[in-house]
C-alpha cells in the first residue's frame, strides 16, 4: 500500500530563501583608494565572450585576472596609469593603457591568430587546464579556429566530434547517440544552455539537433561531474550557445548538400543588448517532389536558435535562449513521423563582488513524438512527450585563492506521456508526473601547489505526483492494484544522496595523477527501440515499480605533457557499478503493452575499462590517437537465466585517429579513422519449426559479436578573406574506402537446392562512400 501525503506540506521554498539572501546589502570589500577595472573580453570574429582569457599588468604579471564564464573580468587597483595586456590562446594579444581615477570599464576585442573561421573542432581540454583540472573524465570541446574534422554531408557536428574522444563511442551509423564508459545513450543527459534536450538527432542521425554555428563551447563529463550537474548516470554533455555581438552586425550563410542555414547577430542596443539568431532547414524534400518515385515522400527538418543577451549593469546580465527543432518524415496520406524539441530558458547573472556571483535560471523543455499510419480503413497513432520545467539558483564563491565554494538549489516538474495509442476509435494512454527538489554544494580546495581536492554533495528528493494512475504488479507482471492519487498529492518519494570526491596531485610540473569517486542518479528513463535517432523510444520516470537508476563510479587518471607541452599523453581507468538498469523482458518490445512498467525488468550493471590518449597540440600537423578498452555487463533476474550478460553496447576495443594539417594559403585538411571490434549481438543458437515456419532459439542475450566497424573520413577546406566578407569551401568524403559496416543484422534460412537448408546471417549497411561539398560566407 502506497503512502499518500499532501504536496502542500512538502513545498520547498529554498529558492525563495536564497533569493532573499541574494538581496542583502553587500559589504564594502575594498578601500576607498582603490578602483575597479571591469570589462569583457570578446572575439573580434563573432563577438563571443572568451572564457579563461587573462588580463594583467604588463609591468607586473602577477597582478591580473581571468575572465569568467561570461567573459568578464575585474581588477582592483590604486589610482594611477596602467598598461594592461589581454591574452587568449588562438588569438593575438592586445595591450591597452588606462588612466584610473574612478571605477572604469575596459573591454578587449581579440583578433583570431591564424584561421578565420570558427568550426566545431574537438580539442581535448587545453593542455594546461587538463593537467590541473580536478574533474577526472571531463573533456572540453572548443569551438575553435585552429583545425577541422571531417563531417557527413559537409555538416560539422558537435555530437559526431565528441564520438572521437577516448571513452566516448558512437552507437553506430544512423544515430547521433553516443555511449560513455559502458553506459547507453539513454543514460546521458544533454543540456543546451542548461536545458535538457531529448533524442538529439535529425533524420537518420545524419545531423544532431545542434547547429554548430550557434555553439560556443561544450564540456562532456564522463561520469565524474561537479555537484551542480546530475540526472544522468553515464555522462552529461553541457552545451553553451553564443551571445550576439554587442558591437556590430554579422551575417553568415551556408549551403550544404542537404541543408542550408543562416545566422544573424548584432546589437539591438549598442553595448547593452544583442541578439543571435540561427536557423537551419533541410531542402532535399524539394528534390523529392520532382521525382516520380519519391514525390509522395515527406522528409525534412529544421531548427531555430535564438539568444537575447542584455547587459543590465556591470553586475547584472540577463540571457534569454530559445530553441525549436522539428523533424517530419512520412508518406503522403499513409504514414507520418514527427518529433522535436522546444526549449526556453532565462538566466540572470548577478555579481555580488569580484569573488561572489549567482546564476538564477528558469527553464522549460518539451519533447514530442507523433507517429501515425493509415492503411486501408485502419488508423494507428503512437504519441509521446516529455514536458519539464523548473528553476535553479547556483552560487559561486571564491573565499580565498585556495578555495572555490559553490552551492545551489533546483526544482523540476516533469510530466511524461509514456505512450498515447490510438487504434481507430480506441484510445489508451499512460502518463507520469513527478517533482524533484535538489540541493547541492561543491568545494574545490587547493591544499598546496601539488594537491587539489574537490568535495561535492548532491541531494535529491524525488516524488511521483498524483493526477495519473499508478499500479502494483505481481511476479507474473499482472497489475494487481491501481492507484489514482489526486493531482496535488504525492504518491511515492525517493531520497537520493550523491556524494562526490576527486583529487588532482601534481607529480611534477608536467605530470599529474587524478582519482575520483562519483555517485549519480537518473529518474528519466528511455526504453530504446534499436539504436537509431528515430522517434520510437519510450520514455518514463521512476515510480513505485521502477526505482531510480544509481551509478557508483571510481576512476583513476594520469596526464603528462612533454616536449614543451607539444605532446600530451593521458590515461584513465574506471569501474562503474549501476543499480536498477532497465532492459526489456523476453518477448516484449516497446509497443507490447501500454503499461510500460510491465514489460521491463531492472537489475545490476557493471562497466570497467581503460582509456588512452596521445595528442599533438602544436605545429602544422595536430591531432590525436585514442584507444579504449572496455567491458559492460548486466545481470537482471528474468533475463539470460539470471546470469551476467554483455550489455547490448558492449564492445572491447575502440580506436580513433584524428589528424588535422594546415598548408599553403588558408588550406587545411582533416582526416579521421575509426575502428571498433564488434558490438555485442544477440544471435540464435538453434532453430525449430512451428506452424510451418522456422523460428530461432536464443541461448544467450548478446552472446555473439557483430563484425568489426571501421571507416575513414577526409575533408579539405579552403578559406578566403576579402575586404567585406570571408568565405569557405569545404569538400569532404565520408567513408573514404566505401566500407559497408553493419547497421542491422538479421537471420533467415538459405534455400539452396544442392545443399541442406542452413541459417544465414546477413547485414544491412546504411552508408557507403558519400562525397560532400558546402559553401559558407560571412559578412
Amino acid at each position, binding site marked *: 500500500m502506497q503512502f499518500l501525503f499532501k504536496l502542500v506540506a512538502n513545498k520547498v521554498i529554498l529558492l525563495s530563501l536564497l533569493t532573499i539572501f541574494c538581496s542583502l546589502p553587500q559589504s564594502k570589500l575594498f578601500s576607498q583608494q582603490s578602483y575597479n577595472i571591469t570589462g569583457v573580453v570578446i572575439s573580434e570574429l563573432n563577438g563571443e565572450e572568451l572564457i579563461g582569457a587573462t588580463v594583467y599588468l604588463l609591468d607586473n604579471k602577477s597582478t591580473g585576472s581571468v575572465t569568467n564564464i561570461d567573459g568578464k573580468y575585474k581588477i582592483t587597483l590604486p589610482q594611477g596609469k596602467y598598461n594592461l595586456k589581454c591574452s587568449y590562446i588562438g588569438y593575438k594579444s592586445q595591450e591597452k593603457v588606462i588612466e584610473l581615477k574612478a571605477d572604469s570599464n575596459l573591454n578587449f576585442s581579440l583578433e583570431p591568430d591564424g584561421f578565420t573561421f570558427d568550426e566545431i573542432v574537438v580539442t581535448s581540454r587545453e593542455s594546461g587546464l587538463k593537467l590541473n583540472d580536478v574533474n577526472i573524465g571531463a573533456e572540453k570541446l572548443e569551438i575553435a579556429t585552429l583545425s577541422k574534422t571531417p563531417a557527413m554531408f559537409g555538416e560539422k557536428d558537435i555530437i559526431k566530434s565528441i564520438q572521437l574522444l577516448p571513452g566516448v563511442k558512437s552507437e553506430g551509423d544512423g544515430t547521433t547517440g553516443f555511449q560513455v564508459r559502458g553506459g547507453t545513450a539513454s543514460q546521458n543527459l544533454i543540456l543546451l544552455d542548461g536545458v535538457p534536450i531529448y533524442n538529439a538527432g535529425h533524420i537518420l542521425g545524419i545531423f544532431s539537433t545542434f547547429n554548430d554555428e550557434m555553439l560556443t563551447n561544450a564540456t562532456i563529463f564522463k561520469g565524474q561531474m561537479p555537484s551542480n550537474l546530475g540526472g544522468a548516470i553515464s555522462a552529461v554533455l553541457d552545451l553553451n550557445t553564443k551571445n550576439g555581438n554587442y558591437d556590430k552586425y554579422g551575417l553568415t550563410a551556408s549551403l550544404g548538400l542537404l541543408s542550408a542555414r543562416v545566422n544573424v547577430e548584432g546589437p539591438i542596443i549598442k553595448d547593452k543588448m544583442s541578439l543571435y539568431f540561427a536557423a537551419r532547414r533541410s531542402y532535399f524534400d524539394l528534390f523529392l517532389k520532382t521525382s516520380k518515385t519519391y514525390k509522395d515522400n515527406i522528409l525534412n527538418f529544421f531548427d531555430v536558435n535564438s539568444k537575447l543577451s542584455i547587459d543590465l549593469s556591470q553586475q547584472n546580465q540577463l540571457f534569454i535562449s530559445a530553441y525549436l527543432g522539428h523533424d517530419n518524415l512520412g508518406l503522403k496520406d499513409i504514414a507520418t513521423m514527427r518529433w522535436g524539441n522546444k526549449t526556453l530558458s532565462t538566466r540572470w547573472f548577478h555579481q555580488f563582488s569580484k569573488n561572489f556571483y549567482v546564476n538564477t535560471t528558469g527553464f522549460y523543455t518539451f519533447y514530442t513524438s507523433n507517429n501515425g499510419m493509415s492503411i486501408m480503413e485502419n488508423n494507428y497513432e503512437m504519441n509521446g512527450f516529455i514536458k519539464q520545467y523548473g528553476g535553479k539558483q547556483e552560487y559561486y564563491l571564491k573565499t580565498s585563492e585556495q578555495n572555490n565554494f559553490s552551492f545551489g538549489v533546483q526544482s523540476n516538474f516533469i510530466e511524461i506521456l509514456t505512450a498515447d495509442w490510438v487504434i*481507430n476509435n480506441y484510445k489508451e494512454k499512460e502518463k507520469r508526473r513527478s517533482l524533484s527538489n535538489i540541493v547541492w554544494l561543491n568545494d574545490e580546495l587547493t591544499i598546496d601547489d601539488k594537491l587539489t581536492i574537490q568535495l561535492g554533495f548532491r541531494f535529491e528528493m524525488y516524488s511521483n505526483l498524483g493526477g495519473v494512475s499508478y499500479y502494483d504488479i505481481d511476479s507474473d507482471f499482472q497489475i494487481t492494484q491501481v492507484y489514482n492519487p489526486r493531482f496535488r498529492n504525492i504518491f511515492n518519494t525517493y531520497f537520493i544522496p550523491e556524494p562526490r570526491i576527486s583529487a588532482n596531485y601534481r607529480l611534477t610540473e608536467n605530470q599529474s595523477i587524478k582519482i575520483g569517486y562519483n555517485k549519480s542518479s537518473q529518474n528519466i528513463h528511455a526504453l530504446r527501440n534499436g539504436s537509431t535517432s528515430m522517434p520510437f523510444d519510450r520514455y518514463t520516470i521512476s515510480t513505485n515499480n521502477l526505482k531510480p537508476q544509481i551509478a557508483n563510479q571510481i576512476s583513476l587518471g594520469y596526464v603528462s605533457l612533454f616536449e614543451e607541452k607539444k605532446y600530451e599523453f593521458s590515461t584513465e581507468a574506471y569501474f562503474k557499478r549501476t543499480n536498477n538498469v532497465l532492459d526489456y523482458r523476453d518477448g516484449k518490445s516497446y509497443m507490447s503493452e501500454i503499461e510500460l512498467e510491465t514489460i521491463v525488468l531492472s537489475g545490476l550493471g557493471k562497466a570497467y575499462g581503460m582509456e588512452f590518449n596521445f595528442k599533438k597540440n602544436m605545429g602544422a600537423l595536430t591531432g590525436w590517437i585514442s584507444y579504449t578498452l572496455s567491458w559492460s555487463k548486466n545481470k537482471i533476474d528474468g533475463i539470460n537465466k539470471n546470469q551476467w550478460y554483455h550489455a547490448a553496447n558492449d564492445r572491447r576495443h575502440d580506436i580513433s585517429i584524428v589528424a588535422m594539417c594546415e598548408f599553403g594559403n588558408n588550406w587545411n585538411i582533416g582526416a579521421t579513422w575509426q575502428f571498433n571490434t564488434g558490438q555485442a549481438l544477440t544471435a540464435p*543458437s538453434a532453430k525449430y519449426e512451428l506452424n510451418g515456419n522456422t523460428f530461432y532459439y536464443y541461448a544467450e542475450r548478446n552472446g555473439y559479436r557483430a563484425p568489426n566497424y571501421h571507416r575513414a573520413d577526409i575533408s579539405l577546406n579552403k578559406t578566403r578573406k576579402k575586404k567585406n566578407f570571408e568565405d569557405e569551401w569545404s569538400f569532404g568524403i565520408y567513408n573514404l574506402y566505401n566500407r559497408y559496416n553493419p547497421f542491422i543484422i538479421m537471420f533467415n534460412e538459405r534455400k539452396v537446392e544442392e545443399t541442406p537448408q542452413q541459417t544465414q546471417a546477413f547485414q*544491412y549497411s546504411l552508408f557507403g562512400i558519400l562525397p560532400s561539398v558546402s559553401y559558407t560566407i560571412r559578412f
Partner: protein
Amino acid sequence: MLITAICLNSCKKDISLDYNSIPPIPVIEGNLSNLGLLVKITNTVDLNKPIENNFIEGATVLLKSDDGIVEQLWDYGDGYYSLLYNFKAKPNVNYSLEVIIDNVSFKSESRMPELAIIDDVSFELKSFGNVPLVFCRLNFMDIGGEENYYQYIIWRNGEVFDWGVDTSKGSENERIYLDILCMNKDKADKNDPDDYDKIIFENDTIDVEVQCISRTVYDYLYSLSLGTMVGSNPIPNFTNGALGYFSAYSTNSKRLTFKWSEVVGYETN
C-alpha cells in the same frame, strides 16, 4: 522508400558467424479445437543443419479438462500424437496438456473461447506511393465480452503463407476488420523464384482461417512474431523450458481461389 531516398549506397550482404551448439530442447505444438486434436513434438536443431528427422517419439502425452476428461494420447510416429477417436473441444472449458519426455514433465493450460465466424474475405490492390500492394481483407464479428484474442492464418495450397495475431482492442462487441498485407504486385510481376514464397499466383487455393485463442497463447504467438526484431525467446507457454504452445481454440475458415480479375482495384491499377 524514405530510407532509400537518403541511403543511396546502402547494401545487404551475407556475413559469417560461428554459431554455438546447444543440447536439443523439446518443441511442443499442441492444437486442440472444435475440429480436433493434434500434438507434434520435435527437438530444436543446430543452425548449420536442416530441420528434419528431429521429431520425438515415445513421449507420454496426457490431456485433461476441468469437465473430467483424462486421456493419454497415442503416438502416431514422426512426432505426432493424438487420440484414437476424433476428439472435439468445447468452448469455455479449461484444458491442460502434459508431456513427459525422459521423466521430465512439461505442462501447459488453455481455455477454449467461443467461435468467431468469418463474414467475408476478399483481396484488394492499393498503391502506397508508387508501390502496389495486395491486401487480404478479412472481417468477422467479435465474440463479445472483454478483450478477445485472435490468430489468423492464410493457407496457400495447403501450406502456411502468412499468419499473425490481433486483439479485439477497440472493437469489442463489434465487427473486426483486418487488412493483411500479402504481397507486392511488382514482385509478383517480376516472378523471381527467390520470391515464390511471397507471391500468391493465379488460381492458387487460399484458405483464410480465424482462430479465437486464449490470452496465454496470444502472448506466446505475439512474442514469437517479434522474432529477430527483439532477439529474444517468446514468453514461455510450457513449464520446464519446453518451447512451443498448447492452444485450445475455436476455428473456422473460408476458401477461395485467387484470381487477379477478382482483386478489388486491379482494373484501376
